[in-house]
């Protein structure tokens, strides 16, 4: 049981992150941006690997930089945002792979970054996740009204004098931090599904942003625990099991609604 204690705490903390940030990402149409950041974060991990530094702080700084670059390009460039996201997505990964190619270190640990390693999650990652959860929960509660108004009608929010750009950059920063801190749970490759599925279901079923966030936390926890149980029982990859449970639920609900 003691072997499972840290993974259980990780699932709980990751569910809070995914519930809050996922609901906001879905509401603000930032899911593909989250996917782009998750893959671009691999560049930070590769850079840390090349330099022989701890991956978490390097990946945080690298991903935040990429997020600000994306925000700048999306706002200023005439190019469609999905094209820009696709390019940065691939370039981040390519940079990470090249860094690892140039490094002579053994790259075995990088599989945990790509596909998750919940059972071997370091304690300091849990502390960082806990701090992030406390900060985003406080901010989401305090600014829930503005966050909803901005999601429904960003142009009106801007005209009304609300600092839309500052809040958008804040959201992007939170998304970047979440992506990096959740990478041990589901892995960078699968992370976008863990961020978006509970939020998408909760947004569909709720009448207020607050309730949607609570529901998304509950769904994330249910998916996480079910995935962990399946992974533990059948000796399978935990991240993939969590996403399989979440994805199957989402598809079943979506197909049921369309039938």
């Amino acid at each position, binding site marked *: 049981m003691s072997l499972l204690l840290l993974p259980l705490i990780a699932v709980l903390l990751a569910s809070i992150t995914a519930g809050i940030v996922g609901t906001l990402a879905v*509401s603000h*149409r930032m899911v593909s941006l989250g996917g782009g950041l998750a893959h671009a974060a691999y560049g930070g991990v590769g850079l840390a690997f090349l330099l022989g530094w701890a991956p978490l702080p390097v990946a945080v700084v690298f991903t935040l930089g990429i997020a600000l670059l994306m925000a700048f390009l999306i706002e200023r460039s*005439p190019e469609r945002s999905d094209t820009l996201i696709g390019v940065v997505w691939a370039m981040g990964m390519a940079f990470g792979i090249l860094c690892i190619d140039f490094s002579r270190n053994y790259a075995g640990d990088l599989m945990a970054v790509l596909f998750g390693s919940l059972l071997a999650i370091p304690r300091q990652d849990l502390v960082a996740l806990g701090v992030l959860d406390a900060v985003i929960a406080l901010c989401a509660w*305090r*600014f829930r*009204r*503005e966050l*909803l*108004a901005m*999601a*429904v*009608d960003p*142009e*009106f*929010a*801007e*005209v*009304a*004098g*609300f*600092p839309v750009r500052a809040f958008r950059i804040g959201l992007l920063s939170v998304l970047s931090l979440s992506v990096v801190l959740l990478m041990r749970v589901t892995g960078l490759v699968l992370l976008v599904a863990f961020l978006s599925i509970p939020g998408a279901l*909760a*947004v*569909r079923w*709720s*009448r*207020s*942003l607050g*309730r*949607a966030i609570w529901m998304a936390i509950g769904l994330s926890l249910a998916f996480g625990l079910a995935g962990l149980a399946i992974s533990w029982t059948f000796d399978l990859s935990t991240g993939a099991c969590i996403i399989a449970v979440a994805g199957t639920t989402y598809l079943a609900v979506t197909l049921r609604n369309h039938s």
Partner: protein
Amino acid sequence: MNSAFRIQQVTVGYRGHVVLHHVDLDFPRGGILGLIGPNGAGKSTVLRLLLGLIAPQEGRVEVLGTSPTLARPKVGYVPQTLSLSRDLPGTLLDLVLSGFLGLQPPGGSPSREEYDRSREWMGLVGIDHLERRKLSELSGGQLQLGLVARALVRQPDLLLLDEPTANADARAQGAVFALLDEICRDRTAVVVSHDIGVLSRNVGSIACVGAGKIVSHGSTEVPQEVIEEAYGCPVELIGHGHPHRILAHHHPHDDSGHRHGGVS
């Protein structure tokens, strides 16, 4: 200071394409101005100029005696419903309450006064019984009335409405304009619409935007040639004691390649 807004020799466009070229438009405080014109003529661009969402390449824009950005707390804006994300976890009451955005520092719950004022305006536009409905459960007309209420809770001196009756039935259209008529005794409103019939029945002045210019401004009696110049096609005005309707010429044997179009 007696102008609600003043557009002087303004040229504006997007990515190298000029939409309005050296236009002037001045409107006094009080009353309703209707803006008509074909698609892409620049009606919404005029609103965006007044809202400070785009800056003129040349010329000057003044709103309520100051710059458009500084005037924003005193301006109410009703966008088209198409620009909204409706599939979100929010109710009609949440939408109307968001009208207070920017008037108070961000953060926290709405005050009792904000709830009361929101419900009062929802009652005045006839949608108070829908306050708990999700935005996705509202019809286009109900949502449009919600947007009008959201703009009015700000108690604006200038109200800018982009196609406010596009999805509304005749009854809702009447309700919106009756309300505008009532509140514009001491306020100013600018209404963008394709429907010159609805506008000419309900507003005091009409400006016609077309071909990069604002080609008419004044009464609701818009001359036919002005409309034809703006729309770039032959039109027919039918008066007969009724408000203006503009219809395309019927040319069953016309092979001249004239473009036809119409507004009713």
